[in-house]
C-alpha cells in the first residue's frame, strides 16, 4: 500500500470509527434499558453506600478524605464504567442476533474499526458518567483537593476503564453471539467491583479479598482516581492507575479483535 493510500485508508477508518461511536452513543442514550443501569444504578448505590456505611470512615487506618462520599465516588465511577461496558456488549450481541452486524461486516471496513467504534462510544459514556457522578458527589458534600487537574485525570481514567470494559463486553458478545448470555453477566460486574477497593481502602479488606484485589487491575484504577481527586499519593498512584487502565484497554481490545476474526472465519 502506498503512503498516500495508507493515509487515505486511515482517514477513512477514522471516519468509520467516529460514525460507529456516534451510533453507539445514540442507541445507548435512546434506550432506557441501557441508560438506567449505566447512570441511575450507580447513583442509587452511591446514595445507599454514602449514607448507610459512612461509619466505615471511623475505622482505624481509614484515610482522611473529608466526606465519605468523596472517598466512595471513585467506586461509583468504576461501577458505572463496568456497567457501560456490559451494555456495550449487550448492544453488540443485540446487533449480532438482529442481523445488523452482518450489515456492518458486509461494508468495506477494517474489522478492528467495528470494535473500536463501539469502544470509543463507550469511552465517551464513561467520561460523561465521571462528570455526572463527581457533580453529584460535590452536591452531597464532597471536597476534592486535587482540583480541576485531578478531576480531568479521573475523567480520563473513567474513559479508559469504560473502554476496557467495552472491549471485554465486545469479546464475549463476539465469541458467543448470545444476547441472553450477555444479560446474565450482570452479577459479575459486582464481583469485579467488590474484589477491588471500590468502597473501602485495600488495607481494610479481609486477607482473601485483599489478595484478589492485588491482582485486580480495577484496584489500581480506582486508587489512581482517589490519588488524583485528593492529590494524595498515599491513596494510590495516578501513573499506576493510568498504566492499569491503558493496559486493560489494549488487552481487551486485542481480545475483541481476535474474537471478531474468529467469528468471521467460522
Amino acid at each position, binding site marked *: 500500500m502506498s503512503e498516500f493510500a495508507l493515509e487515505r485508508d486511515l482517514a477513512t477508518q477514522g471516519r468509520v470509527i467516529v*460514525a460507529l461511536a456516534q451510533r453507539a452513543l445514540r442507541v445507548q442514550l435512546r434506550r432506557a434499558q441501557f441508560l438506567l443501569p449505566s447512570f441511575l444504578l450507580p447513583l442509587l448505590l452511591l446514595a445507599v453506600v454514602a449514607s448507610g456505611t459512612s461509619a466505615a470512615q471511623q475505622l482505624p487506618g481509614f484515610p482522611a478524605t473529608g466526606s465519605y462520599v468523596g472517598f466512595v465516588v471513585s467506586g461509583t465511577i468504576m461501577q458505572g464504567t463496568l456497567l457501560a461496558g456490559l451494555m456495550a456488549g449487550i448492544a453488540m450481541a443485540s446487533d449480532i442476533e438482529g442481523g445488523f452486524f452482518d*450489515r456492518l461486516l458486509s461494508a*468495506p471496513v477494517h474489522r478492528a474499526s467495528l470494535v473500536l467504534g463501539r469502544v470509543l462510544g463507550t469511552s465517551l459514556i464513561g467520561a460523561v458518567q465521571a462528570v455526572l457522578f463527581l457533580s453529584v458527589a460535590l452536591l452531597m458534600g464532597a471536597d476534592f483537593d486535587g482540583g480541576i487537574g485531578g478531576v480531568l485525570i479521573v475523567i480520563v481514567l473513567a474513559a479508559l476503564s469504560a473502554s476496557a470494559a467495552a472491549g471485554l463486553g465486545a469479546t464475549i458478545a463476539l465469541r458467543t453471539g448470545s444476547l441472553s448470555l450477555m444479560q446474565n453477566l450482570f452479577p459479575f460486574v459486582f464481583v469485579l467491583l467488590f474484589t477491588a477497593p471500590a468502597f473501602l481502602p485495600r488495607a481494610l479488606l479481609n486477607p482473601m479479598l485483599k489478595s484478589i484485589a492485588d491482582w485486580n487491575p480495577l484496584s489500581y484504577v480506582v486508587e489512581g482516581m482517589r490519588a488524583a481527586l485528593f492529590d494524595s499519593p498515599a491513596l494510590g498512584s495516578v501513573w499506576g492507575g493510568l498504566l492499569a487502565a491503558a493496559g486493560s484497554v489494549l488487552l481487551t481490545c486485542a481480545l475483541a479483535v481476535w474474537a471478531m476474526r474468529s467469528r468471521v472465519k467460522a
Partner: protein
Amino acid sequence: MGGAARGTTDGSAAIVVEQLERVYPGGLKAVDGVNLEVAAGEIYGFLGPNGAGKSTTVRILTTLLRPTGGRASVAGYDLVREAPQVRRSIGVALQEAALDPLMTGRELLALQGALHGLKRAEARLRATELLERVDLVAAADRLLGTYSGGMRRRLDLAMALVHRPSVLFLDEPTTGLDPVSRATLWQELKALNDDGTTIFLTTQYLEEAEQLADRVGIIDHGRLVAEGTPQELGRLVGEPGIYVKLVDESQTELARGLLAVHGAVSDRRAGGLTIRTALGARAIAPIVRTLDEGRIELDAVEVEEPTLDDVFLAVTGHPAEEEPQDSAQ
C-alpha cells in the same frame, strides 16, 4: 465506488461461481458444488424453498461466510483473496431488513455512507437523494421502530445503494410484504437494473422470479438443479396445458373421465380442469369436441403456459413450498 468494478467494465461476468461448497461444523452440506455465472447487467433469480441453500450461497457471495470448497468471483474480484474489493463493489440487503429500530432512516443512511468511505457532507447529500428515490422523505427523521414492513424494505434497499454498487444482492427482499409494497419494490428493482446494476435475487416466490429475472437458477438440497430463462425452464415441463372451465361444476367428474383419453387431467386450478397433452395448444379442438359430445357446456378455454411452480415440481419432484427436512439455514 462500486461502479468501477473490475468485472463489469470489460463485459465479462459479474458473478462467477465454480464448484462452490459450504459444509457447516457437524457435517451438514448446505451448498454442494454450485456452478453459475451471472452476466453484468442481468437480474438473476435464485429460487428454492427454505433450507435449500439460497441464503448460505448469498452469505458466501457477500463475504459474510467463507466457502469450504470451490471458488467464486464477484465484480471481477476473488471472493476470498480480494474480499475488501468485493465489499466495495456490492450492495447487500439481507433477509428481514435488519435495521436498528432506535435510529432514524436518515441517520442509518448517513452511517452506511460513512461505512463506505463517504465524507460527512457527501453522506448526508447521498442520504437525501436516496430518501427521495425510495419515497421516504416524510419519514426520514422518524425512528425505524415506527416504520411499516414496506418502508423498512425500501430503506434497506436504499442502504444497499449508498455507494452505487455494480452488483446488488437481495435475499428475499419482498418476503412478508403486502402486494402493493411488493409491486413498488419490483418497480424500483427494474429501474435499478435499467441503470445497469446487476441483481442477484433470492426468492421463495415463483411469481417474483418470473416478473423480474432474466434467468433463474433453482437450488434444492444445496445443489443447482436447473437454470435458464423462465421460458427455457418452462419448456422443461413440456407443452402448455389446456384449462377448461365448466358451466356446471357438478359435471366435473364426468368431464374428467371423458378427457382422460387426451392426457393427464388435474384440478389444481379452481373451477375447472387442466389437461396436459403432447399436442399442447393443438389439443384445444379435440378437447372441445369431446366435451361437446358428452353434452358438457363450457364456460371458458385457456392455454396454460407452464409456471416455475411446474418447473420446480418437474426438476425436484416436490412442490416449491415444501420444506426439506435437513434445513441448512
